[in-house]
């Protein structure tokens, strides 16, 4: 306990410092007028695509299921967040936080409603049912014009998403999922991916964990949706079509199913690509496809495989940390 007591808080402190430094640095850069508007937009976009990819990686990578309706949960969150903010129930940061949480929770509830029947069954039912769900939500939004603005879109949404808000959500999302995965709950999820019958014979309620993974995933997809709404200020249902789900899945596959770091890098690469190929925009999809094919040929497990970045490992490699970590003697609890 003592050795653990010395090392873990130190590592946590270093990680916290790095995170705060990153947020501060990003905030200064984005607010300081150093970047063009397009560059700023890309940075914000990268943020919510990281959340979307990291949250999809939970059921797709860690759990080994194939959800095809991530855009549906994003849509639920986007409209809930937008309506919450437009209603002006709360003000200031309370409103921002309230809207994000409401978006996440309603989205997670949808996740549970979809997940319970779909995940009780073995096989690929989840892919089909989530695909149907994604389309259904869009049609529903289109046909409720009095609430959602219908096909015309929902306008005058308060623009709450700045760098700070988006990237704090990014960090919360990554941390929460990371902490879950490095616990008995996360091990249960990974065990289901590796062998479901063996997991059941360990006395683990597999349905519970599948639905849980799915609900957490939907929660953060909802948050990302609300951030999306707060960035654009206007929502149209067609933003959340099937292609959006596929784009997110592509990021996760490209980065490496089951690697959070891969999802993050995938989101950065694929979202900022348009920035470097202006004028080539009509070839965007071709270039994506090409990229995906190349990765699948040369590194089928994705850019990062299942490797996950670990600040602990980096610190141990840099300088005199090695000695202290050896004393701890363990392998599995090295986090961040």
């Amino acid at each position: 306990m003592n050795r653990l007591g010395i090392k873990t808080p130190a590592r946590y402190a270093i990680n916290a410092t790095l995170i705060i430094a990153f947020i501060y640095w990003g905030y200064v850069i984005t607010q300081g007028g150093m970047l063009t508007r397009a560059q700023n937009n890309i940075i914000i976009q990268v943020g919510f695509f990281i959340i979307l990819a990291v949250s999809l990686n939970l059921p797709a990578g860690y759990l080994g299921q194939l959800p095809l309706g991530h855009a549906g949960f994003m849509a639920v969150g986007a409209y809930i967040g937008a309506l919450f903010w437009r209603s002006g129930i709360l003000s200031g940061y309370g409103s921002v936080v309230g809207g994000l949480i409401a978006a996440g929770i309603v989205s997670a509830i949808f996740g549970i409603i979809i997940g319970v029947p779909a995940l009780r069954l073995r096989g690929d039912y989840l892919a089909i049912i989530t695909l149907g769900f994604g389309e259904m939500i869009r049609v529903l939004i289109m046909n409720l014009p009095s609430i959602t603005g219908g096909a015309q879109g929902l306008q005058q949404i308060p623009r709450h998403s700045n760098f700070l808000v988006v990237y704090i959500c990014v960090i919360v999302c990554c941390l929460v999922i990371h902490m879950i995965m490095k616990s008995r709950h996360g091990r249960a999820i990974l065990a289901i991916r590796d062998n479901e019958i063996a997991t059941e014979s360990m006395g683990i309620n597999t349905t519970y964990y599948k639905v849980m993974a799915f609900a957490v995933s939907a929660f953060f997809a909802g948050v990302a949706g609300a951030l999306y709404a707060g960035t654009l200020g206007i929502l149209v249902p067609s933003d959340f079509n099937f292609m959006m789900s596929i784009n997110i899945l592509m990021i996760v596959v490209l980065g490496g199913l089951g690697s959070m770091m891969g999802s993050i890098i995938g989101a950065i690469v694929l979202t900022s690509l348009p920035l470097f190929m202006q004028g080539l925009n009509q070839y965007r999809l071709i270039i994506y496809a090409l990229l995906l094919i190349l990765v699948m040929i040369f590194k089928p497990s994705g850019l990062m495989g299942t490797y996950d970045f670990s600040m602990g490992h980096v610190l141990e490699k840099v300088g005199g940390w090695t000695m202290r970590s050896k004393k701890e003697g363990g392998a599995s609890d090295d986090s961040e």
Partner: protein
Amino acid sequence: MTPNDPRTALLPERDIHKTPVMECRALGIDFGGLTAVDDFNITVAPTEIAGLIGPNGAGKTTIFNLLTKVYKPTRGAMFLNGKNTKKMNTIKANQAGIARTFQNIRLFKEMTVLENVLVGLHNEMNYNLLSSVLRFPEYWRSERIAKGRALELLSIFNMQDDASMKAGALPYGSQRRLEIVRALATNPCILLLDEPAAGMNHSETDELMENIRKIRDMFQIAILLIEHDMNLVMGICEGIAVINYGKLIAKGTPKDIQNNPVVIEAYLGKELGNADSH
């Protein structure tokens, strides 16, 4: 019925006064038109090592799948510690005290050896989701205790040094041993081993025999094993049940079984002949 009727003969001589840890009454299952197991009766005492033998395709693994509720029985009933398991699924059956290994190894291949055992210890830990996200003290305490316990269990087979290896990268024999450790981690009162010595050489098998006995003595649990290696079965089993074509054909002590003409006819003659010719 005669005392030698395999359906009513009691398998164990041990602990005859105690509630059996497991009891099957006329268990049977059909797949479509095919009757894979029929009228299967067995009683296993709390600290007994029992064997289940029979030719390939006789229905042994199917019986394990029935006992662990992977399959629902078409007929009959099964009791764990006197409790009817009719309403249980695989998960509940494990929680009620039955754990198993698989003939075709089902490890969590992408996870480390230690993590495999920690999955087995899942229900021993009890911190909730919030505790894991916020890393409450109970998370650290629970994880530390579980890790210690896992290493302790691995040390039964002297595998503690492989803890950080990927399970899929272990040699075959070690994978079988890890499956036993992982099953033990769920704290069972009866452990089912499906061909634990398959693919092991002579010295490994001898070591396994010792370890199976050691596990029974250490944990005071019952062990029911399927095995083709007659040295192992005759060496450590106190009671043996023989099945052929899904039906019990004999039950008794190793000596009874070795001298039973029906068994020799159906199975043993051939197996022992093979063993001798090596």
